[in-house]
């Protein structure tokens, strides 16, 4: 008796079940459509791809600027190889052609130069052309043979070019001080 009475309620509920299930399925479908669209939009966001390029260019630029301001007179070949691999275009050619002369200078001066990037930012980025300009604030420490080390802050301006999917430095200079009244 009790057992059959208990079966009655689920049976009555059974009739509204399809409607409930259908509603649930529709709600789930709605969510799925929205989430799917949202995901697609996030994955195909042009500005997201641009942001990724920006950060890649900056990371490569900061690393390259640091590399070019790092040199140990005891490990010249390795250091200068790194210089050449961090650069491209005209800058690369300049470094390659002046390599011997420069190596001799550093060898006589016996200096160890290290650099630390304080901050960096991209000012311009042409994603298609593969060109970018960066500002890198650098603190360069030069250690002379006597053991004295001096710190110097450098305001670097770099130009990057993308070659073979990699950003490399194609020009590097310091922001001039008080010169040419650049506003």
């Amino acid at each position, binding site marked *: 008796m009790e057992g059959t*009475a208990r079966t009655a309620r689920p049976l009555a509920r059974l009739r509204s079940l399809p409607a409930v299930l259908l509603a649930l399925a529709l709600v789930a479908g709605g969510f799925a459509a929205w989430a*799917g669209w949202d995901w697609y939009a996030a994955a195909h966001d042009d500005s997201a791809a641009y942001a990724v390029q920006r950060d890649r260019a900056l990371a490569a630029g900061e690393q390259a600027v640091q590399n070019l301001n790092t040199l140990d007179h005891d490990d010249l070949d390795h250091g200068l190889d790194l210089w050449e691999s961090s650069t491209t275009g005209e800058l690369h050619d300049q470094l390659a052609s002046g390599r011997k002369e420069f190596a001799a200078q550093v060898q006589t001066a016996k200096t160890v130069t290290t650099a630390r990037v304080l901050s960096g930012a991209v*000012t311009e980025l042409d994603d298609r052309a593969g060109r970018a300009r960066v500002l890198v*604030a650098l603190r360069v420490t030069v250690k002379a043979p006597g053991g004295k080390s001096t710190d110097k802050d450098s305001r670097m301006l770099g130009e990057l070019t993308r070659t073979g999917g990699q950003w490399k430095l194609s020009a590097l200079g310091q922001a*001039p001080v008080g010169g040419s009244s650049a506003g």
Partner: protein
Amino acid sequence: MPTTRHTLNHQRRRQAREAASPAPAAPPARTPEPPAPDRAGAARAQRQATAPGKEAPSRDTATRATNPARAKRADPVRDTPRPGRIRRPPRSVGLALLCLLTLVLGGFAGWAHARAQDLRADPAVRNTALTDAARTSEIKGQTEKAVAALFSYDHADPAAYEKATKTLLTGKAVAQHKALLDAVRTRADQQKAVITTTVTDSAVERVDGDRARVLVYADQSSVSTAGTKASASGKGKQSAQDEGTYAGAMFAVDVLRRDGRWLVSGIDTFGR
């Protein structure tokens, strides 16, 4: 309710027929389960639906009887399978599929949402420097102006400087700026000097909503006008005979947007 009565009638008949068997306990156990909205339930319902012949046909009919009159007249003959019964299995299969569909759709929704969140949470994407060109140049422009105003000082016109410090600074930048500029100001007053700061280069490092960080290269020129009578109109234009000194500086400023304007909220001089 008619269903219950029908079931009761049916049970009584069964009990009469098979007096020895433990029939009363059996029916509830054999009651077709309502397809639960979970996968296991759905699967069970499907299994039952695929083998209707093995289930007690009478109970099956009981669930379908909706007409009280018919329920009263019910006799063993009417419990035999009728063509209408064939529609029962597709219904539970349909419900099971519906459950499955709901689960699949729900699962996909959750997964896709998580993927989208992941993509957006990427720090590279959150930073809208350059990607939001309008905002980036707005920040750049206002920061350059603010820095020029905050780091320039004319001994003859201290009001302009005071105004800049009051309107362009906020938070901890107030104290930082004071620490950087107070000594410079005192000296400028003594030497009747005009200090002019020009931003030569700047780049927006990061933009995150109403906060941003800008790297600034600036040149500061100090022109002493001690010899000549200082005039407000001649600001920065006294030349030649006055010794002019230039100094290059680099620092980063944190800015935040308030009432449509970007205010300096922090000055990072990189430990100098």
